């Protein structure tokens, strides 16, 4: 579904992604783990078209994403739930959701997805008229995910959705991710919480200073010695 090949991305002088290649098959839940500054967010921003790579390939369902605008990429079915939530705090919950569906014109489909996210997050329905900024941190993360779903994506990119949440909410987020996946949405999930992410993933990539250093089935990586030492050890003590 999504194929990334030899991707190189720079910020001014900083070489943020150094020839990364990844594949996200249709219907899969793929996770990308790695320490701070590894280039994970940069990779997602590049897929969405927010950041232009200096070279490499980005192919989505046979289409080259490199020359497409962000709007076009969203219309193609790729949506990102950005790092740090990034909901619109001055807009109501409802307006945030309407923005999620901004590129869509199929009113019925939008109404259907709205029902769907309200079923997934009943809290948001209660708070529909409230400003996004007045929600709790966990609710804001739910809103960010719900807003992403309102675009009706076939590929959902999630950048550390569990970041900064209380353990019980982290569990809730992972439950939601699995539910979205079971509905047939393909997922590329970035997580610091490597243990939990690899446990639910079909396939995993490990990124380190801009390069993919390891990859394999989620459960295989989970039991990989190197991964355990480098990433999971931190998680246990954290």
């Amino acid at each position: 579904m999504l194929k990334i090949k030899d991707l190189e991305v720079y910020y001014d002088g900083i070489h943020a992604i150094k020839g990364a290649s990844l594949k996200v098959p249709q219907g899969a839940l793929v996770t990308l783990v790695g320490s701070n500054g590894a280039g994970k967010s940069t990779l997602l921003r590049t897929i969405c078209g927010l950041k232009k790579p200096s070279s490499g390939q980005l192919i989505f369902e046979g289409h080259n994403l490199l020359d497409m605008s962000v709007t076009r990429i969203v219309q193609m079915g790729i949506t990102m739930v950005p790092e740090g939530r990034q909901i619109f705090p001055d807009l109501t919950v409802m307006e945030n959701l309407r923005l999620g569906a901004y590129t869509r014109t199929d009113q019925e489909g939008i109404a259907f997805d709205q029902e769907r996210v309200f079923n997934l997050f009943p809290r948001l329905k209660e708070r529909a008229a409230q400003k996004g900024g007045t929600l709790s941190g966990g609710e804001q993360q739910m809103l960010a995910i719900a807003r992403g779903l309102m675009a009706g994506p076939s590929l959902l990119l999630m950048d550390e959705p569990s970041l900064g949440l209380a353990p019980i909410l982290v569990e809730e987020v992972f439950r939601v991710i699995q539910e979205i996946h079971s509905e047939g949405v393909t997922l590329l999930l970035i997580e610091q919480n490597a243990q939990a992410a690899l446990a639910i993933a079909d396939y995993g990539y490990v990124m380190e200073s801009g390069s993919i250093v390891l990859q394999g089935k989620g459960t295989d990586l989970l039991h990989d010695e190197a991964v355990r030492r480098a990433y999971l050890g931190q998680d246990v003590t954290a």
Partner: protein
Amino acid sequence: MTMEIFLQNMANGITLGSLYALLAIGYTMVYGILRLINFAHGEIFMISTYFAFYGTAIFALPWQISFLIAIVLTALLGVVIERAAYRPLRDAPRISALISAIGVSFLMANLGLVIFGGRPKTFYRPPIFQTPIELGGVRVVALFFVIPALTAILLVALNYIVYKTKTGLAMRAAQWDFDTARLMGVDVDRAISITFAIGSALAAVGGIMWGLRFAEINPNMGLFPGLKCFIAAVFGGIGNISGAVLGGFILGFGEIMLVAFLPGLAGYRDAFAFILLILILLVRPTGLLGDKQRVKI
């Protein structure tokens, strides 16, 4: 003070307040989306009056058509200024765009001087606006009703666009953060262009009504109204549309009342705005309706 003079002052205050409000909205909308003080806004206001002037005086168009064309051209002018002078500097430090804005302001004022000439021109005033209307035994010309009424209509329309349409939703999303708005599929450049078009069109309506009210236009006429309305926007809370309207009315009304009740201070009329600015910056730096200052990423 007789009833008649009092009512006349009220009318003057509401009228000037309306004009200031229309002009202040442009400052606040552009600031809201770009965090930029568009110093050229006063000159956009000035040039709109010349568009309308040439339409009637040189091209002999009916005033309705001429005014309408002037509004459209001014909206385009605002869009072009953003494209040419601000967009290339979008990723540069914010001070660069600010300097560019000051440059555009000077450029347009001086171009105006060269092209239009320094001598004031007489603005065509359709007789219909001078129709006297009796109100409580006082005669006021129709213009004093037209200006606030038209302003009110435009404010309702603006409110509708910003809060009830998809375009308005996109503009408000872009105000918060460009990249997050883009992720929703919002065309941020388009949202910015629309913001400039609306702000400039409102300045044009203000400019034309200014011409109708004061009968004379000149290439420097953008300077003081521009500065004052910038202050009105800051006073009301820059970035906040209701704040700009409130600030515009307070400033316009205050100015007229200062002269009416304290004629000895009439010479300080233009200083009034700056005193208000200093006061608000001391007491409430975010302005009357401004909320906590946000840092845009």
